[in-house]
């Protein structure tokens, strides 16, 4: 049985797992803390991998913190080790090498893995997906000689990589099965503008187009067959979604449905000693209709920090951070605050310069989500206002931006 000093075991060395241990020690937790990170390197930032890290792969700032951070805080970082099984009855995990490690609290921060590309030829040399730093390095090497790049999938990763490849001098075609880019993530109104900007930069975009197979010579990719005809390719990059790594929980008998199902405290609904955070967790959110699972840095950091503080005894209450997200696609900075539903009414707001644009999504006469292009100030104003009471109504924004409204409200607060 777990003793009181069995401590915390965190499964996963990504942003969410790091956030847990940082918050644990930050909040004064003194018990043992062990992190299992299956990659044999210090936890690192993932956002730069698709945006710039492959051009400066070992450059500063990829590691989240140096090794000394863990040492000084007595955090046992088990790099290159994975957890093979979870025994919730005995409160212990079993590692890949068969070692049993007991826990008092277990945090699943296992993240997500790439959905494979389900077409013939996906195994050819020159076909890459991106998840890890090693993937980014391989793509970086391939980009130094690539001339014709086909990006399969018009999601965030695909579009970020398309811009990187294009900036490197390659001819780039994005092939997307849906009839628009980022179909689940952004409004049709924003997508239209985003697409236009990519095309202006020279990225060719084929929506409503299926990849049928990838063809090679001598094991090396040379062409992609699509429903619109063949495309020459010496490099294929694909990003067609991710699936949560929830099998450890499922095999242990915990409730799982495209992610580990947790309550508003981020505890497994099956076992109060088990938490799940980040990409692998499916949870209730006050702004969502039903359970959601988000793949974002904000979600990983905020959920991890809450659980770290909670275990340390310093936090109570439900998880309700406002979701926000960003994507740098070459010269385009896309930011999203809040959760939009397809039935929301979307208003397009021109920016104060031609590069800028915002969309405001309203539901029942209240602002629920804001998308911006190249307009970080408006994004930040949105994040402030979406968390304020009373909510912002369409009338509040007649002829005004969120930035102006937030400045006015802040001035009023200061005067009051």
């Amino acid at each position: 049985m777990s003793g009181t000093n069995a401590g915390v075991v965190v499964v996963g060395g990504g942003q969410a797992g790091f956030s847990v241990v940082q918050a644990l020690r930050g909040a004064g937790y003194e018990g043992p803390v062990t992190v299992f990170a299956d990659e044999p390197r210090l936890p690192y930032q993932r956002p730069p991998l698709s945006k710039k890290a492959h051009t400066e792969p070992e450059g500063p700032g990829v590691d989240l913190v140096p090794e000394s951070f863990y040492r000084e805080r007595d955090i046992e970082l088990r790099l290159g080790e994975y957890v093979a099984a979870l025994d919730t009855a005995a409160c212990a995990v079993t590692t890949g090498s068969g070692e049993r490690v007991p826990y008092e609290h277990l945090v699943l921060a296992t993240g997500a893995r790439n959905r494979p590309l389900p077409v013939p030829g996906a195994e050819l040399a020159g076909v890459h997906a991106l998840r890890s730093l090693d993937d980014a390095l391989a793509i970086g090497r391939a980009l130094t000689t690539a001339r014709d790049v086909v990006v399969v999938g018009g999601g965030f990763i695909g579009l970020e990589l398309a811009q990187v490849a294009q900036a490197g001098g390659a001819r780039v075609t994005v092939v997307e099965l849906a009839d628009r880019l980022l179909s689940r993530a952004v409004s049709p109104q924003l997508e239209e503008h985003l697409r236009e900007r990519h095309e202006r930069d020279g990225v060719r975009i084929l929506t409503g187009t299926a990849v049928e197979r990838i063809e090679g010579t001598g094991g090396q990719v040379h062409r992609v067959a699509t429903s619109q005809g063949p495309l020459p390719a010496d490099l294929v990059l694909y990003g067609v979604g991710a699936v949560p790594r929830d099998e450890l929980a499922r095999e242990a008998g915990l409730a799982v449905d495209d992610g580990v199902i947790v309550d508003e405290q981020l505890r497994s609904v099956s076992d109060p000693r088990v938490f799940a955070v980040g990409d692998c967790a499916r949870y209730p959110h006050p702004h969502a209709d039903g359970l959601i699972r988000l793949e974002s840095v904000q979600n990983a950091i905020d959920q991890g920090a809450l659980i770290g503080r909670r275990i340390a005894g310093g936090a109570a209450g439900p998880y309700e951070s406002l979701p926000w997200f960003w994507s740098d696609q070459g010269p385009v900075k896309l930011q999203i605050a809040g959760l939009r539903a397809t039935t929301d009414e979307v208003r397009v707001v021109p920016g104060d310069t031609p590069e800028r644009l915002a969309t405001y999504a309203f539901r029942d006469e209240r602002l629920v989500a804001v998308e911006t292009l190249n307009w970080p100030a408006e994004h930040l104003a949105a994040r402030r206002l979406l968390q304020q009471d009373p909510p912002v109504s369409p009338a509040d924004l007649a002829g005004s931006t969120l930035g102006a409204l937030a400045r006015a409200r802040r001035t009023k607060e200061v005067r009051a």
Partner: protein
Amino acid sequence: MPIVIFELPDGTQRKVTADSGTVLMQAAVSNGVDGIVAECGGNASCATCHVYVDERHGEQVGPPNDVEDEMLDFTAAERRPTSRLSCQVQVSDALDGLVVHIPEEQV
């Protein structure tokens, strides 16, 4: 390498070595300085690495860039004349001995 001093809201100081060529946010994060969240990892996207440059060093560090300037209007803690986003402040040997104050809140 320059030494930078981060002063926390409770008055305690953390003296850290910063690498020239990196940014101030990185020095804080690498050394586990509390109160610099840096959610976006230094992409000028989140405004959670806000600092107040000590008034003695304000001129030396200089003003924010245009986008940073707009973002500083929406930081969690109040904006002051020497507010900067620490991810936008380049570290150089000239900043040796720099003191920056960390605000009460970032998110």
